[in-house]
């Protein structure tokens, strides 16, 4: 049986090349676009720290029109100075900085300790001074810290609390709350709390008493590990300027 002549059709699949070109032309729009390398992105937390931090940055010439934590815009840009501010919830600042979505951030040492993120801790800004402590109900106060072993602690900072009690060889039950921690002992949810205090007024008003000091906390300037290296000149200049005004 003779072979039939082989007819071969070799053709390009329509639409295929366009697809390849479109893909390769797609520039990075994410973290590492050229624009991002040019800009310095600063994450600021909403609330108490915001005003004081914005003021410090303003003093060294880092500001932007409409910079306010009441702003509806979440990103505020200063095109002349190539700065971008992002305004986030307090606990999210270390997250933005660790992932490099922000190069720089301002955050309380309490939140930073609790988040245990791998970031550069550059400077103590000496604002928003407060301290972390353990407090108990005045009426039911026990004689020694060890008397609280194996009891319940209400806290927003379970990691910090665990580190503190572990270092005393105490096993505790940690109850994570998101606000009004002082309620814990009053309503019988816990025997103690671990929280930050500034003046102690809230504690007094709720018949609580500071029982053990854990750590001092002030706002810190933090930086992403890679941004610190890749944008070293700008960040080190900022650090120098901030140091000079803080003293």
């Amino acid at each position, binding site marked *: 049986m003779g072979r039939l002549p082989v*007819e071969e059709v070799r053709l390009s*699949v329509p639409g295929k090349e366009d*697809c390849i070109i479109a893909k390769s032309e797609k520039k*990075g729009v994410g973290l590492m676009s050229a624009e991002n390398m040019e800009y310095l992105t600063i994450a600021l937390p909403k609330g108490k720290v915001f005003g004081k931090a914005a003021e410090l940055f303003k003093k060294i010439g880092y500001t932007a029109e409409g910079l306010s934590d009441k702003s509806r815009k979440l990103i505020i840009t200063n095109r002349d100075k190539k700065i971008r501010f992002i305004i986030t919830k307090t606990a999210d600042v270390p997250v933005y900085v660790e992932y490099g979505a922000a190069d720089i951030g301002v955050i309380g040492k309490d939140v930073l300790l609790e988040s245990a993120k*791998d970031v*550069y801790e550059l400077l103590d800004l000496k604002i928003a001074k407060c301290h972390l402590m353990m407090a108990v109900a005045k009426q039911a106060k026990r004689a020694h810290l060890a008397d609280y072993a194996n009891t319940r602690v209400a806290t927003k900072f379970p990691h910090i609390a665990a580190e503190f009690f572990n270092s005393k060889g105490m096993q505790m039950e940690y109850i994570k709350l998101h606000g009004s921690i002082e309620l814990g002992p009053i309503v019988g949810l816990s025997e103690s709390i671990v929280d930050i205090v500034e003046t102690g007024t809230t504690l007094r008003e709720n018949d609580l008493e500071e029982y053990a000091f854990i750590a001092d906390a002030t706002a810190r300037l933090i930086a992403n590990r*890679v941004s610190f290296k*890749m944008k*070293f000149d700008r960040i*080190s200049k900022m650090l120098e300027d901030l140091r000079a005004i803080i003293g």
Partner: protein
Amino acid sequence: MCREKNFLLEIPYGMRDFLPHDAAIKRNIENVLANLFKVWGYDEVITPAVEYLDTLTMGNKNSIQRHMFKFFDKNNRTLALRNEMTTSIARLVSSRMQNDDIPFKLSYICKVYRYEQAQTGRQCEFYQAGVELMGNGEPTGDAEIVALAIESMLKAGLVNFQVCMGQVAFINGLMQQWNLAQDKQKYIRRALEKHDLVELDRITAETALPDEARAFLRSLPMLHGNENVLKKAAAFALDEQSKKALDNLEKIYDLLKNYGIDKYVVFDLGVIRDFSYYTGMVFEIYAPGLGSPLCGGGRYDNLLADFGKNCPATGFALGLERLMLALKNQGKTECLTNSKENYVAYAEGRLDEAVEKAMLLRDAGEITELAGSPQKLSEAEAYCRAKNYVNLVYIQ
């Protein structure tokens, strides 16, 4: 709502599947690296994933134990999955290759395991590629290692990255020359490792050092830049060890100029790496958009002695998934995928010619799929479009 959870479809914490697209990119990078290591004269070695815990923690002691996957053998000895390759290779060289001639130039591409917070680019199970140069204690060895690390980045297609090169002996010498107490030295090293400048300030303030020395110690993480950094540091390096360390960095940098890649390198005396076995030059490579270094290494002259073979050594390891992520950020992964090149389809009764044609194309190295059964031309075209084939070869 109360359907039973199907654990059979889940994978454990920190583990990852690679689907064809990512697996292809990974394999293509591995091929590039394997070939690069080979042409630089490095021979591949393979060591077991499971070793005795005591072996793997040699030189690092307690700091890494809690990040290891551990279990027991039948004699109740503690086993662990390797968390990196340098220690395993040091063990290998000190035992099985003890009588071979130095230097050893060895490479690996394999999985390692760390029980840590899983991130994109770093699961608990991840891939490392790297080399170890054992038996060369000279700056030429360190320069070769840095140069090969940079070549690895470039050959994989990475464009935007920076190498930061430091020297742990400089910091150690400095602290010794100032007679700092052992615990102070430890705290300072830890503050540097944790990148905590506030803590560093606090510890240095507690020392009895003169103001100038204190200020210099505080500024260690800021010693980043060109050769001026070395000049600045030289003013404080009074003892033999720290002077030698700076001299060593300068020599390595000069050698890197011969390779023509010095433009990627900056000095950074704040880089000290988190494995405690390093004794000399250390370096890390950073790419924008990645929160952690994608490659790191340096000199570890005492690790082999811990295993009973006195031999200087230097090397590096890169995280493959992190490199993949950096390449993706820089839009460089497209050329690392396998584009589907040819689809060979055939009309009824033409299978033999189709096989012959497909084999010809495959011999030429083109990615070629052969249809499973006879097709009409229109069917074959539709299939090509759906599967993204560039060419259709139709035998009629």
